């Protein structure tokens, strides 16, 4: 009998916790519009700054920032996660959400990123252009299924440079690819300009001229199931407005 009573108490406790957890977050909703913004990991720092500025200029509103890979964010939204705005690092993932009817408006492009060659500090192998990558011991690129890997392959292809496949190491995402150089496992890598900026203390950069380079475009959209269309729209406008764009430029993104 005692065991049963103890178990019942424990269950009540667990349910109470779950209730507390959810009531705590709904309580915040009542104070003003709280929206959840899902942003690709590479946008994390810039968006956390943009969210702070948005909250200051829009009293009563509050931003919950959820960061992850673009694919994870899309999977969450496809399964009905309570996100209000989503910003991905590539148009392919966003198109998937558009086709499934999960995002409301036509996605808006708000930032661009280009590729750059990073080398060990001081560029000891004297890499001056894409063509020099053919002679580097190990070159790190993103996996071909990741946007950064797709772009890097296109860039090398367009410049007519072929790096033997046994001298290419593929990182799961941009940060893993960059880490191959900072950890001394690779002599050079092709990553986004924004990644290179973050790791400026640990790598040297060699720019890729515009005709050869690829431009990654970042789209943002309002999730169709949002209850806070007004605040969601205001946030999208803010990201694309002068303050949001200036913050993105600070973090190495290109804006038009």
């Amino acid at each position, binding site marked *: *009998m*005692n*065991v*049963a009573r103890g*178990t019942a108490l*424990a*269950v009540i406790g*667990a349910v109470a*916790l*779950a209730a507390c*957890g*959810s009531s705590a*977050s709904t309580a915040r909703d009542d104070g003003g519009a709280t929206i*959840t913004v*899902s942003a690709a*990991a590479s946008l*994390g*720092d810039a968006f956390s700054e943009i969210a702070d500025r948005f909250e200051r200029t829009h009293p009563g509103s509050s931003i*919950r*920032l*959820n*960061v*992850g890979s673009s694919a*994870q964010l899309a*999977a*969450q939204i*496809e*399964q*009905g*996660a*309570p*996100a209000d705005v989503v910003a991905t690092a590539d148009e392919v993932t966003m198109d998937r959400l558009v086709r499934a009817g999960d995002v409301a408006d036509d996605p808006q492009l708000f930032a661009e990123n280009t590729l750059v060659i990073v080398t060990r500090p001081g560029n000891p192998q004297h890499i001056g252009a894409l063509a020099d990558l053919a002679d580097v011991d190990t070159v790190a690129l993103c996996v071909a299924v990741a946007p950064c890997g797709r772009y890097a392959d296109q860039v090398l292809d367009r410049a007519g440079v072929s790096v033997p496949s046994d001298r290419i190491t593929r990182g799961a995402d941009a*940060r893993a690819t960059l*880490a191959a150089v*900072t950890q001394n496992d690779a002599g050079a890598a092709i990553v986004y300009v924004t*990644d290179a900026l*973050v*790791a400026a203390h640990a790598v040297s950069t060699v720019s890729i001229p515009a005709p050869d380079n690829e431009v990654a475009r970042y789209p943002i959209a309002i999730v169709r*199931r949002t209850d806070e269309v007004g605040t969601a729209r205001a946030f999208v406008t803010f990201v694309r407005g002068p303050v949001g764009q200036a913050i993105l430029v600070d973090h190495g993104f290109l804006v038009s």
Partner: protein
Amino acid sequence: MTRRVRRPPALPLVLAGGALIVLLLPLLGLLTRAPWSDLWASVTSEDAVRALRLSIVTSLWATFLAVLLGVPLAWVLARVDFPGRSLVRALTLLPLVLPPVVGGVALLSAFGGRGLLGGPLDDWFGIQLTFSTPAVVLAETFVAMPFLVITVEAALRSMDRRYEDAAATLGAGRATVFRRVTMPLVAPALAAGAALAWARALGEFGATITFAGNVEGETRTAPLAVYLLLDHDPTAAVALSLVLLAVCVVVLIALRGRWLGLR
């Protein structure tokens, strides 16, 4: 009591040394990269403290739920004969082999806003688990509970049932037998299983980031914070990982000494 081997033969010693190299060399590597000088500043930053606290609270809840629900499941699997029992037992252990990110997608399709159970929960009660702290607890329970079930079930199956029979013969009811005879006999296994489950919950990453998201203060546990820090502050990431390891080691050593009666 175990009999001590007086002169251990060479082969097991060499192989055991190999095991230690595989297990401990990566940890040693982490230690050599640790930013000892600004370790304290890294782990006492507001973000790090919040992530660590969230990790500890959610992993303890996950362990509690794993014990609450896992012990009865282990008992049913060990003692109740029903058709398809070995299938159920195998299915229970699936989270052990499932890549955690896939586990996260599976949790989304069960408890997400359009999930099998998440859909009705949202429609009828307006409860949304995704991006909430209870979702973290759920993800951690999902990956951690099998460790508890497998450990406790093995103990229940291998224990000498004559003690239970004797207690029953002496007039003890089923609940009394369970509480006074069965549970004390499997207590060491329960403690070991709970410790394993807790450690697994504390380190959980893939299922959490996929199912619960990565929202600061609500679902950003220490492993998720480490993932973000790796990008722009690798030394802080190493520092936070070390604290997580230290917490785990201290607790596991303390538990082994106190509850398991081992040194």
